């Protein structure tokens, strides 16, 4: 094996490790929804190549309003799906589209693009003081 081949092999292995680390292991910091009095818990999610924030924490048992602000016209993100609540909504480009539902039970719910490639998570935690 030539020295060039050794260098290519080592760089290649490092690149594979980095790709997997970058896409799988770097975690996104969850963002808590803003709650106002008795209104729904509100989160603005920017849709641009992905969802940011992509992890949202809310309180279970209260309505959640996700406001998707789509800042691109890429076909991939044109729809958002919240499978557990039977929601499939078109997101017009460069507009804010609200999606509202109530996660009754605590748990993790996914929201994805129409094809399931771009994804985000909604973590509903038990309400403080609510019987578990």
């Amino acid at each position, binding site marked *: 094996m030539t020295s*060039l*081949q050794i260098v290519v*092999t080592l760089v290649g292995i490092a690149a594979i490790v980095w790709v997997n680390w970058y*896409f799988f292991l770097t975690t996104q910091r969850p963002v808590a929804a803003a709650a106002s009095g008795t209104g729904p818990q509100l989160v603005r999610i920017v849709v*641009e190549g992905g969802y*940011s924030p992509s992890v949202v924490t809310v309180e279970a048992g209260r309505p959640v309003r996700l406001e998707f602000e789509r800042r691109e016209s890429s076909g991939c993100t044109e729809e958002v799906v919240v*499978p557990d609540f*039977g929601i499939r909504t078109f997101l017009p480009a460069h507009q804010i589209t609200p999606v509202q539902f109530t996660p009754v039970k605590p748990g993790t719910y996914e929201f994805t693009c129409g094809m399931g490639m771009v*994804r985000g998570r909604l973590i509903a935690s038990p309400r403080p003081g609510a019987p578990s």
Partner: protein
Amino acid sequence: MATTQTSLEQCTIPVSGMTCAACSARIQRTLERREGVSAANVNLMTGSATVSYDPAAVSPEALVDAIRATGYGAELPRPGDSPESLLGAQDAARAEEIAELRHKLLVSLGAAAVAMVFSLPLMESLGHGRDPLMLLMAPFSALVHRVAPGVYDLSPRVLRLILLLLTLPVVGWAGRHFYTRAWTAFRHHSADMNTLIAVGTGAAFVYSLFATAADRWLASRGIEPHVYYESVLWIIALVLLGNLLEARAKGRTSGAIRRLIGLRPATARVLRDGAEAEIPLAALRMSDEVVIRPGETVPADGVVLEGGSWVDESMLTGEPVPVRKDVGDRVAGATLNRNGAFHFRVDRLGGDSTLSRIIRLVQQAQGARAPIQRLADRISAVFVPVVLSIAIATFVLWVDFGPDPAFLNALVAAVTVLIIACPCAMGLAVPTAVMVSTGRSAELGILIRGGEALERSERLQTVVFDKTGTLTEGRPVVQQIVTQGTSSAELLRLAASVERLSGHPLGEALVMEAERQGLTLDAVSGLEVRTGRGVLGAVSGRRVAVGNRAFLEELGVDPSALSGDAEKLAAEGHTPLFVALDARLAGLVTVADPIKPESAEAVARLRRMRLETVLLSGDISATAEAVGRTVGVDRVVADVLPEAKLAEIRRLQEQGRTVAMVGDGLNDAPALAQADVGVAMGTGTDVAMEAGAVTLMRGDPRGVPEAILLARSTMRVIRQNLFWAFIYNVIGIPVAAGVLYPAFGIRLTPTMAAAAMAISSVTVVSNSLRLRRLGGRAVAHSERTAHV
């Protein structure tokens, strides 16, 4: 979308008559000054005002009035029209996307074709004579030799520069979105199809750029300064072509919903202050009296006040035969009036109307995730990074073990891996099929609540029918009259007269039959109702008793003379009513709930599909058995109390069977919910739609086998799609990486990979679109094939 009291609502009001920015500004100021309005935005271009308001303080109607007060026209937004407007926006976005893709595709194709001409001399100089692609190119090459021999006189340096000039606009404009989208995704630690295209073409382009700039340096080291501009051009052109075809096909998957929405008429003719006025549908209010002329579409749900007609309800129920509507009958919006004319009172509008509920259910079904998709989901989530890893590994292996020029071969193989991988096919496999099939079913009057319901319907083993209203018409009818002495008309007249006030459904059957025969019923005196046994009273001076055998015996009348007839008819499923006149047996009237004419065929079809059929009934066993025999079910379970229906379903499930329960959705809602698939069957457009996993808009039990066949066909298409998407990647990626090279010398080029990828996602969507043709004859055909 439900909002709580404190939150703001938003509505968009169409405004007409605006000519300049001053107009829109004036309306905007007016709206903003209203109490309860937190923000208003009036758009001159779209002719609309978008207002955020507190519903507790101000109503949309008040906002419309406020706009009208400024001298401009305004209409209230149609209630619940958001699905339409969103769909409209989606259509517009898709049309724009398609137009843009088409432009980009034409430019890329043009550049790629020209690039082919200028690449020929470079390729031929490399002497890849044995390359199969070069053999294919031979006629083209001969043509170029003849038509433009000058190309061959250009130096490789000039050729490379020309190719670079052709590639720049394509990479910088037509394919630019691949790179920008890949970059935004990357910033979010995610990767998609754009990442693969961007990295693949990017690597080929950057290397070619380097080879163009440093050709002398490479040549001095004995390396051929090979360029891949042509591959980059073809990849971008072919991927754009794939995207274009996919966008067009995806637009068609929601065609059924679009057709349903398009059923609403634009206007309605109402009677206000005694005069007819044609008003926009948006202005229609509850309790309006609407006038319908022959050939017109019913604009909303309501009850017929006067007149009558035959109404075509096929667009909602799939029922091909028009339905008779008379005073007191319900009519549904979007149905088509045939020849008569009538007035009706609007009692359901907007989101509550039958059509809106159907649309909502179909949209929910299309949004729900099918369990079968879980595997595809799990794979899509890791797909792109895994492919990137495989591409890097491919590169390393070719450099380490491949033949010379190792670096170039490695680059080509890695780029081919990136380009051939197609995550789109996997992502599209299930949702497109579910969308097409739920939409198509809705057109056939079958509402399926999404992927999970489809999956379970496919796995069904047992179909349990509730009897009354499902396999039978649900209203008893007089079947036979046996008399002793009196005429049958007189017997019926007297019996119906006492039964008229009894309120019993069997009694109602007698009254209806008497009315049908044009008999005049007499007043009854001294009426006595003995629940569960019979009624007694005086009519036209005669003492009339109608009831069961025990009732007559109680009155001291001997029913034995007609007992034989009664028993015989009871075995056929009739309920016998003995009639005594002046304490002497006078005759027998039998009543039965007639079996629907389609029931036997429905059961036969289910049995041909190898499904066990069970009849569940609250009736006594003789009646239930008789119905069961006539329609041909495998098993009859009679004497079941309504509460026990649920237990019966559970018992079947405990035996390990997947059970469908078919009922009206009202009395048997718990059993429907317990079943693996609850099938709510309506009569006409009035149906408990939300009760079952499947709703049949038509009271025809043949909808049950049809729904199951639809589910089977859909699941078959989903499996084909998933299989194709998996197998495509599982075979395509290793071949692109070069696994067949050591043994067979087979390698793919990046251009071939791009073509394969474009074909694969289009194949999946097209396969799903086949489901648009389901139903009617197609269903009958697949039943035959399923049977064989």
